[in-house]
């Protein structure tokens, strides 16, 4: 198929003739041009769509598309220039309205024109790579109207002015604003941004900078936050009503930056109304507002958390080091619980249960509770008080709640083994004096401790309960097998397994004859069934109920300690006894005896004995008589109960020493355990591992650990490496 000229086919067109005179394109274009004029002049109704369409169709078909297109561009441009002029001429307020109206007109016209020129749009435009009609219309509008120098700046200024008025409280026409911004958005993605949004955010930043400065000078923190919140809501409202949704996050950022971020620290630290005041006064609403607002800003919450943490630590530190507070341990612990409750509520409500805040709270509490070395003791005393009388009459659920709260404080303790020691002491006293309010509550707390610290922690405590139960059974057995003792004094013995109970020094005294005989009977009974055991009487821990008849015939039942019983029983056989005689007869150690006699003779309302001379102290030369004038409103009189008290200084030292002693084997056991599994380990890592293992009981002192290591080396459990002095090896 090789020919010089290109062949192509021409399909014979219409059967009817089409006029192909040279004036054809001009004539046809004229028709269309006039039509466009009519359309722009709102005279479209007189036109025939089909005729215009056909004309445009023919022009394109006969290859006059170029003419048609350029004609369109020219005509439109002319019209748009007119329109621009009329908009420029508009006065003041009607400027936007005029613009809006002309824009709507233009759109309608454009649509009609596009439909008429549809064929050109479909065929000529793509092949000639021209802009489609609709887009062309928008571009021409943009170039001739919006970018016209007068209109451009005037439009922007008008919009910004209106927004400013709205911000200062005036009402503006939001509908028009909506239309104008939509127009900008329709004109192209960057038109809205460059013609309006960019300037909008800048102006807004300035506005809010000024406003925030004004507010912060004259408002307190709570008010300022309210205002900031209101402004933020306003801006969101503004965006939703007449701005592009994309603008929302930009304007939010502006407001947040100007109103919140720039003044964050000043707000937090504001005197009399800042964060610390809000915390102290439980200002939930203000705190909640501060939280939600600061959350929007980087580091906002961090700052709040920092200040809160240091405040809690500071006030907590004051609390635990205030000598006044430390006088009453129960009050002290109650204060701690109240503080915890307060902050739990704050974190729960206004701070949205934020985990990081909860953690900050926990670490602060842990910090200051451990500042006071007596905290473990005090917490144990608090529990003791509750279990003796505080929880009397309280229903089960509330008991649980209280105990759970105590457990929370317990978790903060670093020296849990100190707590264990005191708790054991206090529990022993409670059990032996029968002074516990609820057995269930006691056991419940033991369970909680076991869950928290493991079986080891509570095994001895449970042993104490077991001993109490066993003793009951033993007593039943004893009396069952000795029916002849029904008439004599009733003996109740608690047999305590030595390892479980806190160790006490046991110096026995001389019991009255009746009692000691009875005790011996019990001893032989017990050893009959439990050979190989040894019983020793703890006379400093028992108590007795005595029936007494005084001079005027008044009868009373006296509840006294064992020592007191021994002393009083002596007066069955003598009216007057000197201190020395009493001491010899009873063999009670001197300090205990003095205290005992003091409680019998010198306490008002309890003075069953009379002392001569009536001085306050008990000295060797004192003489004692039964106080025949003793009277009391009650039949049963309790004398000198042994209540758990805060330890005196020497006692405290002693307990602490014992705790330290107990720690040594625990440290050694940990070291051996670790070395056995690792075979060899360097010094620093060993210390770290040991500390971690013992963490749940106490904070291991690195110096002490080092000493233990040395000791183990001496005893050939470990050895040092010859080359590296810091490396240890396990010796099997």
């Amino acid at each position: 198929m090789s020919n010089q000229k290109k062949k192509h086919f021409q399909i014979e067109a219409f059967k009817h003739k089409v006029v192909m005179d040279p004036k054809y394109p001009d004539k046809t274009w004229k028709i269309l041009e006039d039509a466009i004029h009519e359309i722009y002049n709102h005279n479209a109704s007189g036109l025939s769509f089909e005729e215009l369409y056909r004309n445009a169709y023919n022009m394109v078909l006969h290859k006059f598309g170029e003419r048609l297109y350029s004609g369109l561009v020219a005509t439109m441009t002319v019209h748009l220039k007119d329109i621009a002029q009329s908009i420029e001429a508009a006065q003041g307020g009607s400027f936007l309205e005029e613009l809006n109206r002309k824009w709507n007109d233009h759109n309608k016209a454009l649509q009609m024109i596009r439909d008429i020129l549809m064929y050109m749009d479909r065929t000529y435009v793509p092949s000639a790579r021209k802009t489609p009609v609709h887009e062309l219309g928008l571009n021409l509008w943009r170039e001739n109207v919006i970018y016209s120098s007068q209109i451009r700046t005037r439009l922007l200024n008008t919009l910004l002015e209106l927004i400013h008025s709205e911000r200062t409280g005036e009402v503006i026409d939001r509908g028009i604003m909506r239309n104008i911004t939509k127009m900008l958005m329709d004109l192209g993605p960057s038109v809205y941004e460059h013609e309006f949004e960019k300037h909008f955010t800048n102006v807004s930043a300035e506005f809010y900078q000024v406003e925030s400065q004004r507010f912060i000078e004259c408002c307190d923190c709570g008010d300022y936050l309210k205002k900031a919140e209101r402004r933020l809501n306003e801006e969101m409202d503004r965006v939703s009503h007449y701005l592009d949704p994309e603008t929302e996050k930009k304007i939010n950022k502006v407001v947040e930056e100007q109103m919140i971020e720039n003044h964050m620290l000043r707000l937090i630290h504001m005197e009399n109304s800042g964060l610390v005041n809000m915390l102290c006064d439980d200002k939930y609403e203000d705190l909640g507002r501060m939280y939600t607002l600061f959350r929007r800003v980087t580091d906002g919450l961090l700052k709040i958390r920092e200040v809160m943490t240091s405040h809690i630590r500071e006030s907590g530190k004051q609390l635990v080091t205030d000598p006044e507070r430390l006088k009453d341990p129960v009050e002290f612990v109650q204060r701690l619980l109240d503080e915890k409750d307060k902050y739990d509520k704050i974190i729960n409500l206004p701070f949205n249960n934020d985990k990081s805040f909860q953690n900050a709270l926990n670490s602060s509490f842990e910090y200051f509770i451990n500042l006071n070395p007596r905290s473990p003791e005090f917490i144990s005393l608090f529990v003791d008080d509750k279990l003796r009388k505080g929880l009397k009459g309280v229903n089960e659920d509330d008991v649980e709640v209280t105990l759970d709260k105590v457990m929370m404080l317990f978790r903060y303790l670093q020296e849990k083994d100190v707590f264990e020691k005191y708790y054991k002491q206090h529990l022993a006293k409670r059990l032996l004096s029968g002074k516990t309010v609820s057995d269930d509550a006691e056991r419940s707390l033991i369970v909680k401790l076991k869950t928290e610290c493991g079986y080891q922690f509570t095994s001895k405590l449970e042993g104490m309960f077991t001993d109490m139960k066993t003793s009951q059974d033993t007593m039943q057995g004893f009396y069952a097998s000795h029916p002849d003792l029904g008439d004599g004094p009733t003996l109740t013995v608690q047999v305590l397994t030595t390892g479980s109970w806190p160790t006490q020094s046991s110096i026995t005294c001389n019991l009255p004859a009746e009692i000691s005989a009875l005790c011996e009977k019990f001893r032989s009974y017990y050893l009959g069934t439990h050979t190989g055991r040894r019983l020793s009487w703890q006379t400093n821990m028992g108590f007795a109920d005595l029936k007494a008849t005084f001079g005027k015939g008044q009868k009373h039942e006296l509840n006294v300690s064992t020592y007191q019983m021994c002393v009083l029983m002596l007066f069955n056989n003598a009216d007057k006894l000197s201190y020395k005689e009493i001491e010899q007869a009873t063999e009670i150690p001197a300090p205990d005896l003095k205290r005992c006699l003091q409680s019998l003779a010198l306490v008002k309302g309890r003075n069953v004995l009379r002392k001569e001379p009536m001085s306050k102290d008990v000295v060797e030369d004192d003489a004692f008589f039964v106080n025949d004038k003793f009277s009391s409103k009650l039949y049963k009189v309790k004398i000198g109960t042994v209540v758990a008290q805060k330890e005196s200084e020497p006692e405290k030292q002693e307990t602490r020493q014992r705790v330290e002693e107990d720690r040594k084997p625990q440290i050694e056991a940990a070291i051996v355990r670790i070395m056995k599994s690792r075979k060899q380990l360097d010094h620093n890592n060993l210390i770290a591992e040991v500390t971690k293992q013992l963490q749940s009981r106490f904070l291991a002192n690195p110096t002490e650990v080092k000493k233990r290591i040395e000791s183990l080396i001496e005893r050939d459990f470990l050895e040092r490496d010859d080359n590296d002095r810091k490396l240890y090896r396990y010796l099997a």
Partner: protein
Amino acid sequence: MSKTVKDAIETIPTDEINSISLSLVRSEILTKVIEYCKKHNSAQMSDVDLMDWDVEFANVHYTTLFDLVLSANYMNINCLLDLVCGKIADMIKGKTPGEIAKLFDIKDVSTYEEDN
């Protein structure tokens, strides 16, 4: 189906639209177009049957085909346009220029004007 007609109705606002003139379309051809549109709008037949019907419909003299093409183009009915152009394309396929000229009765093949 015809976009042009649709626009004619919608675009220029007239109070009453009694008639729309389609001066480029002969009445015979318009009849065929209407027949086509009715058939495709009712969609009572299955796709296979519809295709068979289309083949039947397009089996006409080539002059009618050409007229149909122009009309469909003018009236902006895409599916009809595709159908008829397809038929013409089938007719042209595989033929030499000479054969095509004979088929369509094109005179003066050797002399023609170049279009711009």
